């Protein structure tokens, strides 16, 4: 398990660094795709096929939307420069990351270890999900029955974002007096 997951995670981090540092925005977005698709594989390995399906499709659509936005505008990043300032920023960034990691690693020691979650709320779902809701897919039972209210909210978030996107893309906002 670890032998597959760790290289994938390292790949994701490298993908993130490349996506953020490339001078070409299009290749930056495609590197973002690396992270998303690696995440899909990780979800599969973590026994989460629902997540894997949603992630792979959402990733594809995100890339389509972002690439459409890039093709409308420009793919050049004129702000990237190489020099002393960049090295300085990287240095500060690395130190900050290391400091934050020291804290979090200490915190993680006080949380349940990997592979043995606390099944306080989840145990009833696992035992009784099928008889209580009739859905064989426990994740579907949770998102649409036990926590259906969340899913109404989630669908509303998407609706909000669509309405917002359309509102923002109007060509004229104010009526001229």
């Amino acid at each position, binding site marked *: 398990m670890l032998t597959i997951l760790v290289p994938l995670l390292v790949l994701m981090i490298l993908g993130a660094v490349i996506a953020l540092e490339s001078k070409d925005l299009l290749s930056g977005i495609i590197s973002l795709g690396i992270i998303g698709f690696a995440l899909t594989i990780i979800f599969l390995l973590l026994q989460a*096929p*629902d997540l*894997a*399906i*949603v992630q792979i*499709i*959402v990733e*594809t*659509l995100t890339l*389509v*939307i972002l690439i*459409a*936005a890039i093709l*409308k*505008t420009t793919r050049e990043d004129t702000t990237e420069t190489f020099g002393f300032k960049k090295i300085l920023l990287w240095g500060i960034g690395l130190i900050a990351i290391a400091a934050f990691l020291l804290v979090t690693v200490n915190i993680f020691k006080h949380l349940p270890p990997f592979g043995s979650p606390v099944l306080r709320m989840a145990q009833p779902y696992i035992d009784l999900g*099928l008889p209580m*809701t*009739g*859905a*064989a*897919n426990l*994740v*579907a*039972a949770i*998102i*649409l*029955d036990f926590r*259906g*209210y969340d*899913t*109404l909210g989630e*669908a*509303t978030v*998407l*609706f909000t*974002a*669509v309405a917002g*996107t*359309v509102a923002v*893309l109007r*060509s004229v906002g104010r009526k001229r007096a």
Partner: protein
Amino acid sequence: MRGMTPIVQCISRLMAPSIFLLGVYVVLHGHLTPGGGFAGGVLIAGAFVLLVLAFGSDEWRSRALNWNATVFESLGLFFFWFLAVMGLIEGVPFFVNVIAKANPGHPYRLFSAGIIPLCNAAIGMEVAAGLFFVFMCLAILKMGEKP
């Protein structure tokens, strides 16, 4: 928006219906297999996006498509909302799976789990129409006069 070469168009013509069908399958079997309204809905949106990318779309047709997308999106979500409120109308709490309580159906079959497949269908409709709408708006946006 212009379309692409005939090769792309030909392949898309073959692929889009199968993607659409896969999306419908994923939506309807969300309570039995991995997937569900969101995944299936995005797949359906993908089928339409593929067609628009391959064949292009003139302004008049885009406008008609956008209006249809609005209707499907709002209606899908309204249907989901209605399924949730149905409990309140019947006098039981909000979001109770009223159909499954009355008529549980047989587990592992398509027609089981009460409102869950219906919710999935409603979400699928909303997600497909909404995301297609967003894509269309970005695609047909004309970059205006620059200052």
